[in-house]
C-alpha cells in the first residue's frame, strides 16, 4: 500500500489483482465495478466515467507494470479508486500526462493500445486525480469521483 487510505465512512471495498501482459482479463475489474455501481443506483454518467477510468488503469497496469492492484472504496458521497503497481515507474510525470505520449512498444500499439490517452483520459474522467511514481519501483494513482 503506497497511498494513504481514509477508512472513514467506507460502505464497501472491492479489490482486484491485475496481472502483467494479460490483455484478456484487463477489463474484468471495470466491468465488475460497473455492475456493482449500477445495482447501487449511481447516476449512469458517473458510472460511465468510473468505468472508463478504471478500464484505462487496468490496461496501463497490464501493459507497463509487473502487476498491480485496483481498490475501489465506495463511500456515501464519493467513490475512490486506488491503482498501485510495481514496475518501471514513470520518469517524467508531466510528459506522461500529455495526450498522445506513450512508451508502449510497437507490438502493443498494433493491438490498438498505447495511444497515449490512458492517463489523460483518467484525469479527464475523475473529479480529483493524484499520481505519484518512483522509477524502477512503483506507480500509484488515486482517483476520486463525487456522487
Amino acid at each position, binding site marked *: 500500500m503506497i497511498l494513504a487510505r481514509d477508512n472513514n465512512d467506507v*460502505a464497501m471495498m472491492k479489490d482486484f489483482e491485475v496481472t502483467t501482459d494479460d490483455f484478456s482479463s484487463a*477489463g474484468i475489474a*471495470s466491468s465488475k465495478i460497473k455492475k456493482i455501481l449500477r*445495482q*447501487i*443506483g449511481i447516476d449512469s454518467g458517473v458510472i*460511465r466515467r468510473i468505468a*472508463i477510468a478504471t478500464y484505462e488503469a487496468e490496461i496501463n497496469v497490464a501493459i507497463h507494470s509487473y502487476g498491480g492492484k485496483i481498490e475501489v472504496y465506495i463511500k*456515501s458521497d464519493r467513490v475512490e479508486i486506488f491503482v498501485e503497481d510495481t514496475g518501471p515507474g514513470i520518469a517524467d510525470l508531466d510528459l506522461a500526462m500529455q495526450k498522445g505520449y506513450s512508451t508502449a512498444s510497437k507490438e502493443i500499439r498494433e493491438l490498438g493500445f498505447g495511444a497515449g490517452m490512458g492517463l489523460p483520459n483518467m484525469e479527464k474522467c475523475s473529479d480529483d486525480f493524484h499520481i505519484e511514481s518512483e522509477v524502477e519501483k512503483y506507480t500509484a494513482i488515486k482517483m476520486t469521483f463525487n456522487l
Partner: protein
Amino acid sequence: MDKYWHSVVLDNDYCNGCTNCLSRCPTQAIRVIDGKAKIMKERCIDCGECLKICHFHAKGTLSDNLEKIKNYKYKVALPCISMYGQFSAEYDIEDVFQAIYKLGFDLVYDTAYAADILTKYQNELLREPTIEKPVISTYCPAITRLIQIRYPSLIDNITRLESPMEIAARQIKKRLMTENGFAFEDIGIFYIAQCPAKITSIIQPLGLEKSYIDGGISLESIYPRLIKLIEKGERSHPEVQKASGNGVGWGMVGGQSFGLDTEKYLAVDGIEEVIRVLDKMELGKLPEIDFFEGYACVTGCSGGVLNVENPFMAKARIRMKSSNLKDYNPDDIESNLTREDLEWDVEMEARTILKLDKDFKVALEKMSRLEEIAQKLPGIDCGACGAPTCRALAEDIVMNRAQFSDCLLLGRYNRRRRKRDDNEN
C-alpha cells in the same frame, strides 16, 4: 394493462424446470420457481433467446389472430422485411405479396420501402454536426431495451428515427385519410412479425405514445395458409414491391448500413456479441464508428424466431433478392411524411430495474450483504437453485426473493472445500 406487457410468454404445462433458459437470458430475467420457469416482467426485453434454447417448446409468443382484421373496414398488411427470405427462389416476392392479399387484406404495403425512406433521413441525420456518435439504430427493439436496462449512458446515442414498420403505418394512414377519406379508426394496420420484440413494440412502443399499428400477427402462424394460396405469376391485386435493393437488405444484418453515405459503420448480430460491442462503446473505445446496427438474433431479422425458414438460408435469399433490385436513389423516394413524423414523440428513458433499492444508503447496505453472501456460495453457477448464477441467487436472497437454503450444493461444497483446505495444509 400491465406496466410491462410481453409477447414472450411461458407455457407451464411444457416447462420441465430445466436450467437451459436461465443462463441464456441476457438480462437475467428468468428464475425457476417450484419447478417452473418464470419471467420477471420488468427485466424481459423480448429478445426471444429463451424461445430458441427451450427443448420443451414451453415458451411461446402472444400475437394477434388473423380474425382480428375483421374489426376494421379497411385492412392493411405490413409484412416484415425478412418475408423476402421465407419462400424458395421459384416464387418472386410479388407472388408472396399477392398471396397475403388473399388472406383478406385490402392493401399490402412493402415495409422495405419504409426502410428506403428511413435511409434517406438517417443520412441527413448523420451529416448533422451536433449529432452524438456512434448513432445507434432502433430497428431491433430488443437491443434498444437492452440499452435502456444495461447501457443507460448510451441512450443519447440512439437515433430518434422510428422503425420501418412505424414509418410505413404512418405513411399509409396519412394517405388513406387524405386521399381516400377513411377515418383513422376505420383503418386496421397489421404487422406480420418476424419476432416477439416487434409485437411488444406495437403494444408498448418505445419513444411513442401509441403505435400506428393495430396488431401484430406472427409470420409463422399464417405461413401454412400462404403456402396454399401462393401462385406463380399471379397478379390479381395491385403490385406491391416497391423497395430498392437497399431497403430489402434491412431483412439481414448489415442491410441498414449499406445504404448509408458512410463506411464507418458496425453491424453486429447475436445478442452476446452485441453486448461485447456495447461494453466497448460505453468505454469510448469505438472512436472511428459513426453508425451502429445491432441485432439480438444471429443474421439479423432473418433470424427472428417467428420466421419459418432457416436464418442463414433466409439471409442468403434476401441478399440475392436485394442484389437483383435497383439501386437506392434518395431522389426517387416518395414520402408524405415530414421529419417530425419520422421521429419519436416521447423521450426514451433508462429502465433502472437493476437497482437494489431506491434509497442509496439502503442499496449500499444490500450490496455489502450481497457481496458477503456471494462469497459463501459455491460460485459454479449451476442453476439448480433456480437463479442463473450464484451472484443472482445472492441478489435474490438480499431482495427477499429466495433463501440461502435454495442452494442445493452448499453443504456438499463446504465439505469439499474443507477437504481441499485440509489437503493443502
